[in-house]
């Protein structure tokens, strides 16, 4: 079963024409992830458009509508690997719908690559991309200063952009070790897979070398174990007549056989009897494993309930405050009712109060009475039943939720629960 390579998930963000698709295409090319037939297709398309170079952006621009407009319009997932590491890129577009799309892409990523056009420097979009990386508490940010070929690989240009960006970092949750600046040219392949000879003044790693040394462990994820029950397994067969297993994915920390655990919401305590995965029994399970647990005592436990260590109880509240990002055209207003999905648990939620809309350029917040698509704001909710949560900053999976519209059933917002 084991694929021992680590898995690093990356969200990419840039403005229109920053060369993001070209950068991704180049990464695929340099890691031999573009197959002969895909390369042929790129050569053919490039020729058809009259380019005298290979347009790697064509490797990722998927949909017909996009190719016509020459821009990407949604989140696309791209895969490549090196000998040591598997990578998944969630590629998100840089134009108007950027907030929704980048929040979506960043929600499954540990690393953000923010592209800056060396000729343009830090622009309004850069603030916004960094704001989202900060809001979602990604572990690492790579600031890729692209198109260095168009500024004669000038160190001065790089240093100015770096200094300007560092002012932003001071306004964020990040410490300087989490931010890496790399000057590069995606088009020419400089500082992508190997160090560039044209920028000897740059002492850091190439982009690919840097991505390879990152660790997937989430700096913001606490070591507290959270086990939301997804599905109760009752085989009712001869061999497993009395078997009652609780299956789900383990988040945040380890669980061991014998651990004293508390069942939420009933607050019953018991111990873990077995941890199993297929027909194998284990003494201990690591975070992010999908497992089945049995308990010493018969307890009332069904989908949406949560199992935690008895000395590590989460908060249980019917009133919560969250930072919300609106991801649907329908605005969110005071008094609106939604289904709130927290992990696999669903409760009804009513918007009690909208405190503010937060400017995504780090310039503060303003009072508001509704949240429109791509707005980020602070919102207070009243719930039909308590949820068992941690603040997002302590535990991402147990501190986030989505809102589902009762009419359209669309996912309309994503929330990050505040402390």
């Amino acid at each position, binding site marked *: *079963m*084991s*694929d021992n390579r680590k*898995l690093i998930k990356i969200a990419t963000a840039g403005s229109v024409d920053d060369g993001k698709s070209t950068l991704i295409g180049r990464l695929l090319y340099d890691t031999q992830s573009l*197959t*002969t*037939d*895909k390369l042929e297709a790129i050569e053919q*398309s490039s020729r058809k458009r009259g380019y005298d170079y290979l347009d790697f952006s064509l490797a*990722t*621009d*998927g*949909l017909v*509508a996009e190719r016509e407009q020459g821009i990407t*319009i*949604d*989140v696309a*997932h791209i895969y490549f*690997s090196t000998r040591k590491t598997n990578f*998944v890129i969630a590629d998100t577009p840089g134009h108007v719908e950027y907030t929704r*799309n980048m*929040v*979506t892409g960043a*929600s*499954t990523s540990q690393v953000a690559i923010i592209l800056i056009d060396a000729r343009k420097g830090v622009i309004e979009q850069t603030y916004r991309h960094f704001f989202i990386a900060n809001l979602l508490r990604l572990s690492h940010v790579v600031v890729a200063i692209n198109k260095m070929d168009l500024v004669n690989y000038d160190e001065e240009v790089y240093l100015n952009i770096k200094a300007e960006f560092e002012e932003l970092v001071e306004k964020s949750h990040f410490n300087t070790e989490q931010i890496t600046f790399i000057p590069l040219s995606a088009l020419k392949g400089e500082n992508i897979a190997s160090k560039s000879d044209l920028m000897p003044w740059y002492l850091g790693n190439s982009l690919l070398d840097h991505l390879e040394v990152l660790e997937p462990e989430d700096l913001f994820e606490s070591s507290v174990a959270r086990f939301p029950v*997804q*599905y109760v*397994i*009752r*085989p009712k067969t001869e061999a*497993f007549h009395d*078997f009652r297993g609780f*299956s*789900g*994915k383990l988040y945040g920390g380890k669980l061991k056989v014998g651990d004293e655990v508390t069942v939420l919401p009933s607050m019953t305590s018991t111990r873990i009897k077995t*941890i*199993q*995965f297929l*027909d194998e*029994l*284990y*003494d201990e*399970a*690591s975070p*992010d*494993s*999908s*497992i089945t647990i049995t308990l010493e005592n018969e307890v009332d436990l069904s*989908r949406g309930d949560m199992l935690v260590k008895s000395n590590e109880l989460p908060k249980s509240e019917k009133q919560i405050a969250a930072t919300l990002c609106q*991801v649907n055209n329908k605005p969110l207003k005071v008094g609106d009712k939604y*289904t709130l*999905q927290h*992990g*696999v648990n669903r409760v009804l939620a009513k918007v009690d109060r909208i405190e503010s809309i937060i400017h995504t350029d780090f310039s503060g917040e303003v009072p508001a009475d509704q949240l429109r698509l791509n707005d980020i704001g602070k919102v207070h909710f009243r719930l039909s039943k308590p949820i068992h949560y941690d603040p997002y900053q302590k535990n991402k999976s147990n501190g*986030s939720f*989505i809102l*589902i519209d009762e009419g359209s*059933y669309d*996912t309309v917002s*994503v929330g990050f629960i505040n402390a």
Partner: protein
Amino acid sequence: MSRVLIANPKEAESIHIIREVAAQFERPVLLFSGGKDSITLVRLAQKAFFPAKIPFPLLHIDTGHNFPETIAFRDQLVEELGLELIVRNVQDSIDQGKVSEERGRYSSRNTLQTTTLLDAIEEFKFDACIGGARRDEEKARAKERVFSVRDDFGQWDEKNQRPELFDMLNGRIHQGQNVRVFPISNWTELDVWEYIKNENIKIPSIYFAHKREVFFRDGMIWTANEHVYREAHEAVEEKMVRFRTVGDMTCTAAVLSDAVSLEEVVDEIRLSTISERGARIDDKRSEAAMEKRKKVGYF
């Protein structure tokens, strides 16, 4: 010695998705083609629910042009795991006059199966269809969601997809809608092969090198068979070949190979420079082929 379970992140994610299907839907079904991706899905579903049985049936849309090895494999798998199998035939859709057979050099029943699939979904009122598509297969698939909502006509509206945040899956749908679910979205072709090797999963024999009567066309290798259109000048020869995908004989090309074991197959794939869908003629029809077919309800 303490036994510690370390998660394979992609496997754990897929199992999480499959359990969400069982929990959120009333009538899920697993679309089974007999290919390696759907065989991997069966293995993952087994892991998701053990020691209970997989709580949904398999559905095979049989074009009638399958490799016989695939059908024999399917029946054996179903028997061994005690699964429920539903088969619906493209031939029936043709006989009922709902679709008509393609003619000529590139004729295939591959596009016809959409109609048979949609009819089966309606017949059994399936609300979730689990499929083995992967985002790395083709550009249009890269934007596919894990839970992909389809309307009554099975259509995919790529501009109106629900965002999927973290690993929270929203399977709420209206009457008449259904969801296509792709648990191995984030796997690559090599991930699947390595998993099959590491788990020692049985797969149909045509994935391994064997002698076969074939002919060459457009730089690709085709099975010489009554179902595959062949022109008189296209000469048949016997070659050592294997298949990288198990679609219809009419649209699945072979590759020259000596790989007779899983180890050798995985090594070959690792070194290979032709992506998997490159060996499927149906995608070569045009650059936007896959996207067009998805809009009308293809897997």
